[in-house]
């Protein structure tokens, strides 16, 4: 998922592109002239800009030049999308700093293809994608979401998938999968060194019937995992290269030792529930992730309805954190049964609303 700024004075074009780009999983911000567009670039740097040429107050060419003059605007891909369709118009746009020039007579599909070509790291290689599931406080349903998403991702991508439980002590991934681990991340780390390969991890993995392979959290109080263990980053890197998909259930902490792990993730799924304490924790988590220089586009916000009470409206939440919610998981009463039986929702109740929403989240992650 990328954050795309679209600038055009034609409301029909804005509506159409907003729809077409959101449909393929992008976050879209629309502005109706170049001055508003420049303000948006300063306020929150987009991953890519689509701009018209013929706009009031400032032409698309002038907009390009001004974006390029800003330090934060020098590396943003800009696609000029205009009714002027002559080769000289393309050259003028490129001279002004645009990366691409497309006439408005093309279909949105062609534009989307061009956008994806210009987005840095625009398509996560399924051969090496690592997703971390995180919240700054417990009780938001992060582990349950991580477990079920791992299954949904494995099915959707048909990829070899690992689930790693980095909760320092007593993580619940094994419980939710209904497996009894004989080993854990800590025991895997105990023999790990810089020369270790995936073969050193294999004995510690438990293969679940869904195909997901789990590296569980320790259940032994004396073997508490330390996120500061430098070998952990190397171990995760090996897992990432050995599995098509890796899903990490992250500890509820943003302490500096965890920074290297967070930075190594392709996407961080930040989970919140619709209540004020969770909102506050999420705002702090976003602040912390920003301090760690985690790019905004790497953060995927998921609203998890953990209780039957409706809680805060999604609009209120989005306004408060000034970010869009990428996916919303509805309240799912079957989750309690799933946890008690050790049978994940996607296996025990695959047709439930919750399972469907998690499936959609998995698709969004794969297409992000």
């Amino acid at each position, binding site marked *: 998922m990328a954050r795309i700024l679209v600038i055009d004075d034609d409301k*029909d074009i804005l509506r159409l592109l907003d729809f077409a780009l959101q449909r393929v999983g992008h976050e879209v911000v629309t502005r109706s002239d170049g001055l508003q567009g420049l303000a948006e670039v300063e306020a929150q740097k987009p991953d890519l800009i689509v701009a018209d*040429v013929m706009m*009031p107050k400032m032409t698309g060419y002038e907009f390009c030049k001004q974006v390029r003059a800003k330090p934060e605007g020098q590396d943003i891909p800009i696609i000029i999308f205009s009714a*002027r369709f*002559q080769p000289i118009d393309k050259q*003028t746009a490129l001279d002004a700093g645009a990366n691409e020039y497309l006439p*408005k*007579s093309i*279909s*949105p599909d062609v534009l989307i293809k061009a956008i994806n070509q210009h987005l840095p790291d625009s398509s996560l290689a399924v051969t090496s994608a690592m997703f971390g599931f995180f919240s700054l406080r417990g009780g938001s349903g992060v582990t349950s979401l991580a477990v079920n998403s791992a299954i949904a991702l494995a099915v959707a991508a048909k990829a070899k998938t690992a689930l790693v439980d980095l909760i320092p002590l007593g993580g619940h991934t094994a419980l939710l999968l209904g497996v009894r681990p004989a080993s854990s991340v800590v025991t895997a780390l105990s023999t790990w060194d810089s020369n270790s390969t995936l073969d050193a991890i294999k004995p510690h993995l438990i293969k679940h019937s869904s195909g997901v392979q789990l590296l569980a959290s320790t259940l032994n109080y004396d073997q508490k995992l330390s996120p500061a263990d430098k070998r952990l980053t190397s171990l995760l890197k090996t897992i990432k290269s050995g599995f098509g998909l890796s899903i990490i259930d992250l500890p509820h902490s943003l302490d500096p030792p965890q920074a290297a792990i967070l930075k190594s993730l392709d996407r961080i799924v930040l989970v919140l529930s619709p209540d004020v304490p969770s909102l506050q924790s999420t705002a702090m988590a976003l602040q912390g992730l920003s301090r760690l220089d985690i790019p905004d586009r790497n953060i995927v916000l998921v609203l998890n309805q953990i209780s039957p009470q409706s809680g805060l409206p999604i609009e209120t939440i989005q306004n408060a954190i000034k970010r869009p919610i990428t996916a919303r998981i509805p309240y799912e009463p079957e989750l309690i049964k799933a946890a008690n039986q050790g049978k994940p929702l996607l296996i025990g109740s695959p047709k439930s609303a919750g399972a469907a929403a998690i499936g959609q989240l998995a698709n969004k992650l794969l297409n992000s």
Partner: protein
Amino acid sequence: MSKLQPISKAAGRVTADFFTDSHRFSASIVVFKRQLIDVLSDKLTAYMDLVDIYVSRINKPGDIVGTYKRGSLVKEEINFILLSSETQAISKERYYVPNRISIPIFVTVSSFEIHGNFQWMGDLDIKKILATETQTFLPILDATASNSFIPDINFQGPTVLVNKAKVEILCLNEP
């Protein structure tokens, strides 16, 4: 998925490039339910009301030197108009008529040479093309217009409407 139509700000609005001897005007005209070629041929007025006008000089046609919300263009000063689709120029009835004959055509207007294809139904009489048609602009398809003085400056498009009153010579080959 449908294409983005350049006529999008309002129904009946056409965006095009209007070329005179000295300038290129990228602008829109509200035609309501008519075709642009009919608006051009309307002899009740010698002017066309344009909106959202972007002015470029002909020697640097990519550079925009001025933008204006509204303007009035003198029809007889137009050399040709470049459109992004054929259907913007001619009526649907004419567009869908079968058995149209396509003939390579060459015309010159002041300072421009235009190559393309001309479509005709029935027996071809070259004199009729300029003299007897009721429409004052001539549609040329798959057209290229090159500046006679600076040939590197050229414009291409699916349709060009050439001002018949500005035509110096019209040449074509027999089908």
